């Protein structure tokens, strides 16, 4: 019998709160954000860094959500053969032995 794994509910809540905090900040400070984020030039780092931050926090929340809901990847799928293309015969010429 396979032991039931504990679901990462704590992690889900933590990253969920983080994600809410980030999105709320963007909503409440949108005027300030829009004023600076679209200035161009060196300010380019602002939108790029922001999406990386959201990818980390919200991305982790999203991945954990699917895990907690029980939707997880399958390691060895008998419906799929190997991920790789079939083996090739090596037709390269060889040096004389």
């Amino acid at each position, binding site marked *: 019998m396979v032991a039931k794994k504990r679901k990462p509910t704590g992690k889900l809540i933590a990253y969920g709160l983080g994600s809410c905090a980030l*999105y709320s900040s*963007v909503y409440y400070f*949108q005027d300030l*954000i*829009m004023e600076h*984020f*679209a*200035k*161009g*030039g060196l*300010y*380019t780092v*602002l*939108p*790029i860094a*922001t*999406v*990386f931050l*959201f*990818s980390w926090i*919200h*991305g982790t929340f*999203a*991945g954990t*959500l*699917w895990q907690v809901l029980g*939707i*997880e*990847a*399958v*390691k*060895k*799928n*008998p*419906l*799929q*053969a*190997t*991920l*790789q*293309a*079939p*083996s*090739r015969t090596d*037709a*390269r010429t060889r040096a004389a032995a």
Partner: protein
Amino acid sequence: MDMEILNDATKFIQLDPAGIVFLFIVGFIGGLVSGFIGSGGAFVLTPGMMSLGVPGTVAVASNMCHKFPKALVGSIKRYRYGQVDIKLGLYMAAFAGIGVQLGIRIQNQVLAAWGQAGSDLYVSLSFVAVLVVVGGYVMMDAMKSARTSCATEQTCSLALRLQKIELWPMISFKRANLRISLWFLLPVGFATGMLAATIAVGGFIGVPGMIYILGASSLVASASELVIAFVMGLAGSINWAMHGMVDIRLTLIILGGSLLGVQLGAIGTTFVREHMIKVVMGSIMLIVAVSRGLAMPKYLAKLGLMEVTPATVAVLEKISFGFMVLSLGVGAFIILGSMIKGRRALSAVPQGQEA
């Protein structure tokens, strides 16, 4: 695109709850499709944003700024499943980068010669030609794969023949398990970039190219496409952001949905039969071809090549947009359906679960 005409006052729209929900949902479905087939979503998101009143350049820029983090998250997930060939993705991205530059130059020349209507017609013709030819081929191959009794996808005979040609330099790709001349890799990557610059979805040539010309499996091709999308998306986004064209609010709303969707799509690839990737890709491409075909009379009329009343154009535009949304909906429906079916089939067989 003429960026100088946009001033700060008109660039960024006021967001309302309906617009936010719309972008989140479309972002989710676009992410789901991307996570599964490696590309998609952009062709609905950009016009979708424009339908909310967002100027074209801001829509393209904001969409691209969500695309690369989505692709990053999707590729990390699929890398953990052993599906991503990073080397293949990087080589393709390098050649695609060159293709993008040529694609942009051609676009500018068409714009200069025939104006905006001519440029739009060129884009639509490119869309329809590529989607019908490539999408039709992918769909036929998917139907053939579905009928075979074995679970293994067969590597296309063209790819096997090309792999046998010893044309220096030969490059080996470990994860994709293929060895092929750089001279066959170059045009596939190049065409991906050119198409990305023209219709914003390079993966419609990139993924079939990797499958049928290079000989990668559907899983590896669609997963490695996410690497290409990340590299090109990041480069493009930096460029747009430097011109101040990214509306970060739109990007983050779409990202909110797409980070959920892309991971679900990635998970889904592990429990379906491999040919489903081709089924979803072929379906989406053919429906979008219809959508773009319906948009063509408008540009033909503007160029004086066809007689169409403004009322007819308005109706055709609405139907065209409807078909575009339908394509994503159908894609999502097939993905979720095949995931449910795949899970049921697997629950009858003991297998390992991801940690």
